[in-house]
């Protein structure tokens, strides 16, 4: 059956079986391989994407359920060459080692920052409690999110300076 959704702001369609999972539609049909398949059992969060701004596990969503919805993947974070604050945070604070969990971590934490621009350590840990990192632990991931929160706050105060710090034009 035909399915149509907006992915990273662009309308995308496909002709798929109803049993196709959203993560497979993104990776196979749309060639957006930034979203990873980890456990494939709703446990690890590597496949996290946003639907209508809310993070979900795309291995546990049928692509047809996203019909007409707004889907955002890790490919939708950066604006051209300018990394999003959350990406800068992970870069600056060494929030990753192998990087497999990172797209999911960033989709969850960027959604958190939308709802709560200045989260505490506990609130960050709560938000990522459905996402597993098996390399190095969560210290630097928490630092990365705080870094991004600070960048966003500075951008509100002094937009031009923050854009340079973020690697922007």
């Amino acid at each position, binding site marked *: *059956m035909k399915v149509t959704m907006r992915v990273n702001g662009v309308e995308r369609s496909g002709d798929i*079986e*109803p*049993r*196709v*999972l959203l993560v*497979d539609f993104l990776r196979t049909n749309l060639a957006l391989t930034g979203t990873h398949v980890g456990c*494939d*059992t*709703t*446990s690890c*969060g590597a496949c*996290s994407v946003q639907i209508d701004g*809310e*993070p*979900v*596990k795309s291995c*546990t*969503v*049928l692509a*047809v*359920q996203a*019909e007409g919805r707004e889907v955002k993947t890790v490919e939708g974070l950066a604006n051209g060459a300018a990394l999003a604050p959350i990406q800068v945070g992970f870069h600056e604070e060494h929030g990753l080692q192998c990087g497999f969990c990172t797209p999911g971590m960033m989709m*969850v934490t960027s959604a958190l920052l939308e709802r709560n621009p200045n989260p505490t350590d506990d609130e960050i840990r*709560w*938000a990522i*409690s*459905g*996402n597993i990192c098996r390399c190095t632990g969560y210290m630097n991931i928490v630092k990365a999110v705080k870094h991004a929160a600070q960048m966003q706050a500075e951008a509100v105060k002094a937009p031009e300076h923050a854009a340079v710090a973020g690697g922007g034009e």
Partner: protein
Amino acid sequence: MFPAAFDYHAPSSLAEALSVLKERGDDAKVMAGGQSLIPLLKLRFAQPALVVDIGRLPGMAEIKRDDGHMRVGALVRHVDVERSTELAKLVPLMVEGVHWIADPLVRNRGTVVGSVCHADPAGDWGSIMLALNAELVAQSSSGERVIPLDGFFQGPFTTSLRPDEVVTAIRIPLPAGRAGGSFHKLERKVGDFATVAVSVQLQLDGNKVKKAGIGLTSVGSTNIKAKQAEQALVGHELNDDLIAEAARLAAAAAEPKDDNRGTAAYKKDVVRVYVQRGLKAALARAQEVKA
């Protein structure tokens, strides 16, 4: 992992959903958020010929007061309960319990009613709703019926719902006067199923217990309502001896099995300890309410 192939229908009205289920209910599974059903489909524990996705039905995502009840529509997600200031005030047991369900991403999609209808004996909503004496509103093309949750669960993943029915809401009697609840869950990590969970709801009349609800998770072939323990409390003033006796009765009602989360004897003892703690916490909260 891919589910086995199925037909998919996303009705745009309840009438359309009911007519599809009248026709093909025996071969169909109803899906709301899909957070329980999709894993079952992927593991091929369930292979329905048809999935009826009620996720787009209008007017079913509301939490509202209704004739002495809170009415939670079939598309109310766990996260909606987490964010509901009205439930936090009126049925705080639900909001306390919801934080323990799955993880934040699953809570963004999974629904309360879907979880209850999934009837996993390891589910948390079942025991919370048994403690609250909730009832389900089910619709079919031949009309509406109200199903008390006590008796709804018939076995693992098995309920008294008919194949042509859709549950449109769950109704929770509003705790009145000096009431308090408490939820305790033992889990190995976030997102794991409960080793044991216990829901307790008390309502006081003066210093005596007027109503008591105790629901158990993961210690039997269904969520269990510990009725003997509940009855032992009603009409009495709570003291340490009575709390210990009710906890013993609740543990006796539990029928856990040995598994990788613990032995049956261990789980029974966790039930006993959690019912004690739950009753004490619920009592303290009820006593804080000004009569």
